[in-house]
């Protein structure tokens, strides 16, 4: 009996190998990144060095955040397991080089989509997972309640290598205010310097301000001013030149947003298979052959919803429940007064 066991296993292995070869579709052949990811068994994802709500590691090294969830969604779609992600924390300065040099395959690090970044440096933005805008934080005791009270000589702390540095210049120039930019390499030092009183204001994306405020020695002493001085659509980025991989990341994100639109959650996804609505059935893989276009099976989107949840669940878990930005603002669905609107999955 055992004599045959060995032969049997090798036979199974051979069949398995054969099977993988035959099922490897044209798309997978075309996408080097997809093939490499499946071979390695994990998605290589670049995240921030710690921004609560977006990408932040706990003491045990578990990453959470809405940027993290995008990578987890891709892992669920491509590898079947949302935990098969290798996270690489990157500074603002390192992030694009890490992506273009092939060290990571997805950059999901609160990165602003701009024309020059999209066109110039070998990157492709696949979508927006958070609509943000640049704002200013000041000490409550300063009595400042609006940016119109800023005066010549104000010092502003920020990060280098971000759109913030450019927006800040545009903003102060347009108001004709002379300012002192104090730019640090890492966010933690910006917070420490502002907290110590080095700067009168701290400027970055409003979501970032809300998240960093929780790190201050006394968060209640600081307020974020109401004005938004720029558009900051934040979203995941991939390398230019692999359109299949680009599509996979784009539609993994879109799936999460559309799932919320149709009320599909991680809890009810399986039951939705019997829904009457064909759009819902397509999203949970009960109708159509949507995955085939990427070289994935038909349950790819169901796995995303089941393992990661829809966008609303991700937002609630990471941003609302942690007290960073309880109000979704523009990041509400278009059906509920926000601007989250994705093309249909069909």
């Amino acid at each position, binding site marked *: 009996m055992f004599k045959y066991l060995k032969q049997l296993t090798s036979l199974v292995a051979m069949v398995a190998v054969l099977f993988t070869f035959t099922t490897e579709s044209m798309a997978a052949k075309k996408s080097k990144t997809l093939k490499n990811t499946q071979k390695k068994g994990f998605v290589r994802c670049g995240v921030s060095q710690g921004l609560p709500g977006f990408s932040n590691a706990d003491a045990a090294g578990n990453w959470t955040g809405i940027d993290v969830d995008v990578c987890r969604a891709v892992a669920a779609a491509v590898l079947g397991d949302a935990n098969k992600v290798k996270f690489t924390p990157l500074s*603002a*300065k390192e992030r*694009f*080089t890490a992506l*273009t*040099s*092939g060290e990571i395959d997805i950059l999901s690090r609160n990165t602003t989509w701009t024309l020059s*970044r999209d066109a*110039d*440096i*070998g990157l492709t933005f696949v979508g927006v997972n958070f609509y943000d805008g640049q704002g200013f934080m*000041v*000490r409550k*005791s*300063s*009595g*400042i309640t609006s940016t119109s*009270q*800023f*005066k010549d*000589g*104000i*010092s502003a*702390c920020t990060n*280098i*290598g*971000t759109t913030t*540095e*450019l927006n*800040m*210049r545009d903003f102060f*120039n347009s108001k004709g205010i002379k*300012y*002192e*930019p*104090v*730019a*640090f*390499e*890492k966010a933690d*030092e910006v917070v*420490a*310097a502002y907290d*110590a*009183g*080095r700067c*009168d204001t701290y400027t970055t994306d409003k979501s970032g301000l809300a998240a960093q405020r929780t790190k201050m020695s006394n968060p209640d002493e600081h307020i974020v001013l109401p004005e938004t001085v720029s558009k900051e659509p934040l979203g995941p980025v991939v*390398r*230019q*030149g692999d359109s299949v991989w680009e599509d996979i990341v784009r539609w993994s994100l879109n799936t999460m947003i559309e799932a919320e639109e149709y009320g599909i959650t991680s809890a009810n996804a399986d039951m939705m298979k019997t829904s009457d609505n064909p759009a819902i059935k397509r999203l949970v893989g009960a109708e159509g052959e949507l995955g085939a276009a990427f070289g994935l099976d038909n349950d790819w989107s169901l796995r995303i919803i089941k393992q990661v949840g829809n966008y609303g669940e991700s937002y609630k878990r990471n941003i609302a429940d942690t007290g960073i930005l309880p109000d979704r603002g523009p990041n509400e669905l278009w059906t509920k007064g926000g601007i989250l609107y994705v093309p249909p999955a069909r």
Partner: protein
Amino acid sequence: MNFKLKDIVPQLITVTAVVLVFGFFTYNAQINMENRGIDFGYGFLSQESSFDVQFSLIEYDGSHSYFRAYLVGLLNTILVSVIGIIIATILGVIVGVARLSPNYLINKFAAFYVEFFRNIPLLLQIFFWYFAALRALPLPQDAEAIFGVFFLTIKGLYVPAFIWQNFSVFFYSIVAAIIAIIVIRIHAKRVQENQGKQIPVFLISIGLIFILPLLSFLIGGVGISFEVPVLKQLATTSFIYEGGVSLPPELIALTLSLSLYTATFIAECVRAGIQGVGKGQKEAAASIGLTPNQVLKLVIMPQALRIIIPPTTNQYLNLTKNSSLAAAIAYPDLVLVFAGTALMQTGKAIEIVSITMFTYLTLSISISLLMNWYNKKIAIQEK
């Protein structure tokens, strides 16, 4: 033919290997960049930079070019290196001599300083001086005036600005004084060689450097006035000083930590140099009737310097290269401005990193050449 095959072959192999390795990496980089649609080129240097820099020695704002931003960073690096080298040298010499002092307290204090500061990583010291100082310094509105005109605050050190009248006359008077001193020194040397007479060059030099500029004030029409910094309110609890010159706390913290750190190594070089001169030299010099000052100036120091200069050159190079840690505390040096912000905004990683590396190489080699020239000048002149 003097060359032997066995001499040439290993060298040829080495050269070929080096060329091949570099060629391989260059080729690879080219292919990779082409695949990812990244252009290579230095054209971006003339584009508008559109970001501002906190502290600059030349006129600069975001409407200038990336090349101008590069110059801003370079000058800031040179500034902090030069100030750092000067302070580190003075402090290093004092501490080095103090370590040889027969006075127990001075001796032990110097030893403690050296051991303490050279054994803590520099980055930690920079963070310490920056954030500790930030926490300890008063807000502008609480700052006490030092001598009525200086204000040391969390936002920087504010000093009065000089406002000159006829500055060029003053400048030329100093140039004239320096030229006069050089002429007198050459003359004094010739007089001593020919007639054996000594001219008190040092006293004359000091006199010249004071008297000529003083004359420029009295008869040259040079005037000077001060602009003292004045407190200005920005908001209920937010103030700054206006007028005068402000030195950002980043510059102060960086200079302080670089000098304190490097001075420990220079102190050890100085101690080694002085201890390296034989005891007999001093005794022999004294026995031919030289005064203690002459012994130090003519016998001990020329020999000690020969031992001190080469390792001190290393420390100067280290200080210059270590100044790139500035990026951690927002001092806008070459790395922060050019290899940081400019790199990010343009995405030209290879170009900018190569320029930055080449710049540091040039800086280091310049310091090296200068010190080697000085070293050769004071080396034993074999006749």
